[in-house]
């Protein structure tokens, strides 16, 4: 298996990207890499070129570039060339830590959607706290589409189910709809419509609405939401966790000497909490619904996180997670078209 890597994307690129790929190369003997970037910058950073091919890309898409315009105008950029290599079959998956919008646009427009899928969804894995039966859950869409229709959410549920089964090891994942209450009649008209659709879908283990405050307790294995809400909830979760840690730290610093001594003894505990809440360790965000794995990791990712994300991509490829989705949508194309037509009435 060969992975197309955007060497130029991310806050610490290309240095940390190259270092991360070298760790991954040593860790996974069966994986090869095409590293797209400006060779004069990338080559001096590479210690050992075994299973790593450098591909010259003259241009770089910056974090502030407007996504669709950038992928249409910067045809020699590392993101565009890497995505084209995946589209043309030279590589099996796409990885970048760069401009999220441009990565989504490249996935959507260059690699392309799986036939039958209206809108691919961006998904991320988050931790479940204090639940012996479950240590993570999946949420989608977390921001690929700001405006989602009920039919899109139905498709996210299917995409999430397959990912949870093939990559995360859930047998029959519990699908929950993120809503402002658990009762079936909660939410606006769109959410009530989605609740009905998911409830009647025979292939889904739908458990009903879930509230955002229960997510980290493991309310569902796959949480389905529209991209606008999903993005807001994801950022709020991350921000709240960091704020609470800061609050604890400040209270200790301003407190008594015994408090400080106690805190010193609890240092490993705090480290564990931080580690559990660091969702980059669960890998990158995956654009589900496109023809090959497209994975974006945090812009601030360092080498170790990048290597972990490569492990996630390897698992997606080994478990044929995309092929499973392709065959599901192939087998259910008539049903899907009828459902879409029905929902547009």
């Amino acid at each position, binding site marked *: 298996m060969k992975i197309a890597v955007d060497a130029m994307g991310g806050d610490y690129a290309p240095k940390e990207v190259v270092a991360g790929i070298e760790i991954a190369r040593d860790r996974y003997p069966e994986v090869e890499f095409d590293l797209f970037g400006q060779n004069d910058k990338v080559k001096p950073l590479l210690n050992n070129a075994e299973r790593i091919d450098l591909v010259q890309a003259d241009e770089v898409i910056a974090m502030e570039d407007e996504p*669709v315009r950038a*992928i*249409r*105008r910067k*045809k020699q950029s590392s993101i565009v060339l890497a995505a084209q290599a995946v589209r043309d079959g030279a590589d099996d998956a796409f990885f970048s830590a760069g401009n999220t919008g441009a990565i989504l646009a490249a996935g*959507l*427009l*260059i690699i*392309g*959607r799986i036939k039958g899928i*209206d*809108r691919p969804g961006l998904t991320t894995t988050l931790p479940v706290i204090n639940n012996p039966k479950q240590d993570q859950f999946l949420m989608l869409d977390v921001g690929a589409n700001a405006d989602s229709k009920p039919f899109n959410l139905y498709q996210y549920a299917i995409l999430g189910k397959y990912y949870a089964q093939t990559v995360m090891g859930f047998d029959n994942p519990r699908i929950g709809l993120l809503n402002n209450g658990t009762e079936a009649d909660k939410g606006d008209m769109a959410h009530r419509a989605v609740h009905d659709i998911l409830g009647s879908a025979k292939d889904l283990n739908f458990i009903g609405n879930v509230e955002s405050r229960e997510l980290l307790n493991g309310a569902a294995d796959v949480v389905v939401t529209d991209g606008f809400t999903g993005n807001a909830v994801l950022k709020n979760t991350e921000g709240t966790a960091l704020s609470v840690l800061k609050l604890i730290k400040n209270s200790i610093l301003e407190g008594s000497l015994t408090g400080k001594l106690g805190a010193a003894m609890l240092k490993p505990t705090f480290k564990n909490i931080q580690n559990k809440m660091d969702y980059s360790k669960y890998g990158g965000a995956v654009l589900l619904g496109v023809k090959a794995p497209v994975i974006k990791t945090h812009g601030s990712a360092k080498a170790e996180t990048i290597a972990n994300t490569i492990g996630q991509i390897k698992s997606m490829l080994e478990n044929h997670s995309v092929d499973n989705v392709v065959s599901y949508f192939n087998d259910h194309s008539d049903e899907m078209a009828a459902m879409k037509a029905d929902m547009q009435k």
Partner: protein
Amino acid sequence: MSKDEVFNKIADIIADRFEIDRDKITPQLNFKTDLDADSIDFVEFILELEDTFGAEISDEAAENLNTVGEAVDYIVANTDSK
């Protein structure tokens, strides 16, 4: 590239991308009403035209392309392939 050659290439792309019979593709075929395509399909198609012909198609120009004939004329007028 002649106008006919451009038409043939575009027709090949459309037949392949939108899975329609190659013989049914005429200059009058309308992208927006005659094909089972959504807005993303259309942007993908514009990108493929840009890659195939080395042409730059601005957003405004893309919005005004409705038929195969208009796309052929645009490519012929905006590339060296006359």
